[in-house]
């Protein structure tokens, strides 16, 4: 039962995922699945439990209960297998600022046991596509935030993971860069990488294939953006989210 299982092309399957911190329930019986190659948006307000869930899926944190498989492996027992197959970009900027672009690529490629030649090849390819090949030897601290963010994403998918987890990747980034960043996400998805992205920018939700919306630790809605807008009779994802949040508040009052 420990071998990798692919069920109907789902790379992430969670059934009744629960995470408790003492009396506080951060994730309340989350059930969802993510298909191979899709861009899955994981939406919610700050403190809704997004980061807790993503940390569990990445193996940084252990769930309290529930059955969870990532890339076909059980998160309780096969975290090492999972770790080889995923990429991760955290909320906080996560490159080494005192190292150069190339040194960061070489280091992060190295911890995934990639050969130097392969790292060089892919790094050149990625930098070329970003049009910053000449910045290869620039120290990260000297680069503008937009470029750093794109580099952080490039580094996260350098080893061609099956799934890349992006935890609020566009926080504090200007709209133009956000746009370019999402283009990079599409390109990655086109090469077969599954993208699991959390955000609280509702306009970004429109770019996802499917989104789940979390409110207070629960998944309140899960569907394609079009379908959600239809269901909730809303003009934009922002309205969908507000309606959901309001409904939840009323339930709380009752």
């Amino acid at each position: 039962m420990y071998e990798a299982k692919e069920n109907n092309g789902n790379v992430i399957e969670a059934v009744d995922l629960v995470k408790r911190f003492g009396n506080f329930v951060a994730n309340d019986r989350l059930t969802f699945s993510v298909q191979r190659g899709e861009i899955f948006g994981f939406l919610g307000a700050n403190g809704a439990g997004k980061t807790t869930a993503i940390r569990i899926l990445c193996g940084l944190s252990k769930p309290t209960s529930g059955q969870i498989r990532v890339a076909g492996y059980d998160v309780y027992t096969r975290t090492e297998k999972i770790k080889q197959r995923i990429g991760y970009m955290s909320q906080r900027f996560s490159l080494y600022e005192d190292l150069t672009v190339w040194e960061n690529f070489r280091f992060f490629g190295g911890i995934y046991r990639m050969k130097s030649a392969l790292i060089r090849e892919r790094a050149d390819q990625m930098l070329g596509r970003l049009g910053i090949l000449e910045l290869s030897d620039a120290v990260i601290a000297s680069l503008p935030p937009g470029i750093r963010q794109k580099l952080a994403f490039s580094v996260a998918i350098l080893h061609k993971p099956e799934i890349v987890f992006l935890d609020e990747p566009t926080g504090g980034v200007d709209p133009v860069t956000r746009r370019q960043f999402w283009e990079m996400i599409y390109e990655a998805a086109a090469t077969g990488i599954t993208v699991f992205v959390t955000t609280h920018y509702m306009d970004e939700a429109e770019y996802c294939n499917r989104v789940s919306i979390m409110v207070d630790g629960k998944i309140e809605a899960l569907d394609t953006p079009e379908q959600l807008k239809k269901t909730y009779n809303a003009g934009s994802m922002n309205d969908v989210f507000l309606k959901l949040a309001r409904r939840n508040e009323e339930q709380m009052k009752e």
Partner: protein
Amino acid sequence: MKRFIIKEFLHIFRDVRSMLILFGMPLVQVLLFGFAITNEIRDARVAVVDAVPDVVTKDLRNKLFASGYFTGGDILAGQHEIDERFRQGDVKMVVVFEPEFAQKLERGENPVVQLIADASDPNAAKLLVNYATGIINGYNRSLGTYPPQAVIAEPRMMYNPSLKGVYMFVPGIITILLMLVSAMMTSISIAREKEAGTMEVLLVSPLKPISIILGKVTPYVVLSFINAVSILLMSYYVFGVPVKGSLLLLLAESILFILLALSLGIFISTVANNQQTAMMLSMFALMLPTILLSGFIFPIENMPAVLQWISLLMPPRWFIFIIKSIMLKGAGLTYFWKETLILTAMTGVFILASIRKFKIRLD
């Protein structure tokens, strides 16, 4: 692993502060201690007891005070005044000529000059006596008729006759620097990864926690070791501090202590979430006890009983004892196997504790 270590070295070499602590510190500390001593020698006040002055004693006195090492030259009324002058602290050494000095020399007997030094400052006392002896030997050579005619210099150390604590500063500095570089720098560099968010990325990667720790720690082992060796070399060549015992044993014990300090550093970093906290914790939990309670500056025997008990828990205390024994007494493992065992046990405890802590953090 290899890339991890390379990356860690890059962090260190690009950070001016790290480089200053790593390489400036040993140099400055050794030189500071060294020069503090030479300054004292240059201006040392010396008094004289010369009951019956004659040509020879006057000649010797002139030679001593012309050397530049000694100042003062007060003539004391007699031996009874020596103790009083030492207690007042304004005199570092008293030169006592025996009576009938010139006549004895004439007769072919060997008149005696006593060099009484205040050995509560053992470094200074020893150097003063050495200088004075050198000058007197120079005078003997100038007499030319060796052997019958010669003045005998007879050193006497007061207050601390065995010169306990001589060269104490070298073992002390080695201990402090190993503690500083190994524990403080490691804890800060791990805390920096947490602060920057890169630690999460490392934890999500297939790297095992033990590889992360080893990768972070290896450069500091290497640099600490280089530091220890360079302090030894510098103190040997600049200040003539000897290593009487086995150099190999000394280095082996140093590595043991480096491991201990590193495991302390890792332990601190599992508690501290940012560089500031890591630094403060290392300062208060490691540096101050190392300086104050290890017997480096204040003798443990003179401490209140409570502090003596606390000092038993201080790793530096045991390490200072060990290197002191090797460097100054030339002792071997049979002499301090107990202390070595204590250090080994402490290292084991801290490594286990930090691995546990590190794992818990992952949940």
